[in-house]
């Protein structure tokens, strides 16, 4: 466990979480959310929970991004609120 590395990842996590909520372009928000998942995966791997990191990379950063893009493709790309 490297404290400096942890702090950098946690700061980026907060930044990406806020951006994904604020961005009005839903496709952009999905991309930022996928970055969030990948940072989460890095954090798990760094804490020694390799199995959880693997799942996060496969499900969070991979497949759920595809599902969100497939859904956005059939709705409108811009958020109304």
């Amino acid at each position, binding site marked *: *466990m490297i404290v400096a590395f942890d702090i950098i990842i946690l700061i980026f996590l907060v930044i990406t979480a806020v951006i994904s909520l604020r961005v009005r372009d839903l496709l952009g928000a999905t991309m930022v959310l996928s970055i969030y998942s990948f940072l989460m995966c890095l954090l798990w791997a760094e804490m020694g929970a390799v*199995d959880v990191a*693997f799942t996060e990379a496969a499900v969070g950063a991979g*497949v759920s991004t595809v599902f969100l893009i*497939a*859904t956005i493709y059939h709705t409108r790309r811009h958020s109304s609120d």
Partner: protein
Amino acid sequence: MKWIGLIAVVLTGALLLSAVGDFPDFGDPKSPANGGVGDFSVSQYYITHTEQDTKVPNVVTAVLADYRGYDTMFETTVIFIAGIGIIAILRSHPPGGRRGPAHPIDATVDGDHQRIIIGITCRIMIPIIQIFALYVVAHGHHSPGGGFQGGVMLGASFILIGLSRDLQAALARFSERRFIVLACLGVAIYAGFGLLCLLLERNFLDYGVLDGFFHTDPVMARSHGIFAVEVGVAFTVTAIMFAIYANLSSKGRLDEGL
């Protein structure tokens, strides 16, 4: 209304943050999870006994599929129900029967080049992804991974066929009937192995009794039992991941996809 929501969020957040202060330190050997209550410690038991109990080097896999097999069985069922729910809500049949693709295939030179590059790359990558996914499922005892991760990767390889070509090409390899049967089969394999233990007069999901079935000693039988239920998990997850993509990308019509 917005203010009430904000107050609720801030209060919940403050409550959660104040609870974090009571957590034991990260990696503290005296915390309840590590040090245990009294002399008995759960994590010490898993770390010292997993190898003798089940002959599985990866403690995480042993805990997931053997010591807490119930938990994983119902996680698989949750995924199964989620997928069946999405199919039930989205699936619809077009009134005019099956038609060809609505917009014709991009036949310009530029579009053609892009199709070739993406097509060839995916054609090379998909077998590698699938072999690696099978390795992750089969090697979950020794390295990180298991049924969930391998199943997601296997499902993602079929999604990649659907993305790089079209949904029809993916459905030709993994039809609707096939993914629904596979999803049911996965849950049935998991519950079936649990029931088999029950029929042999032991507890549900107590694989040690299956030594005659696997032709090994009771310890190795637990390792084989873990592998068997991981295969069941991988079946369900593969089928449901592809089913969700196929229904979402085609508005439930399963005709052309993205």
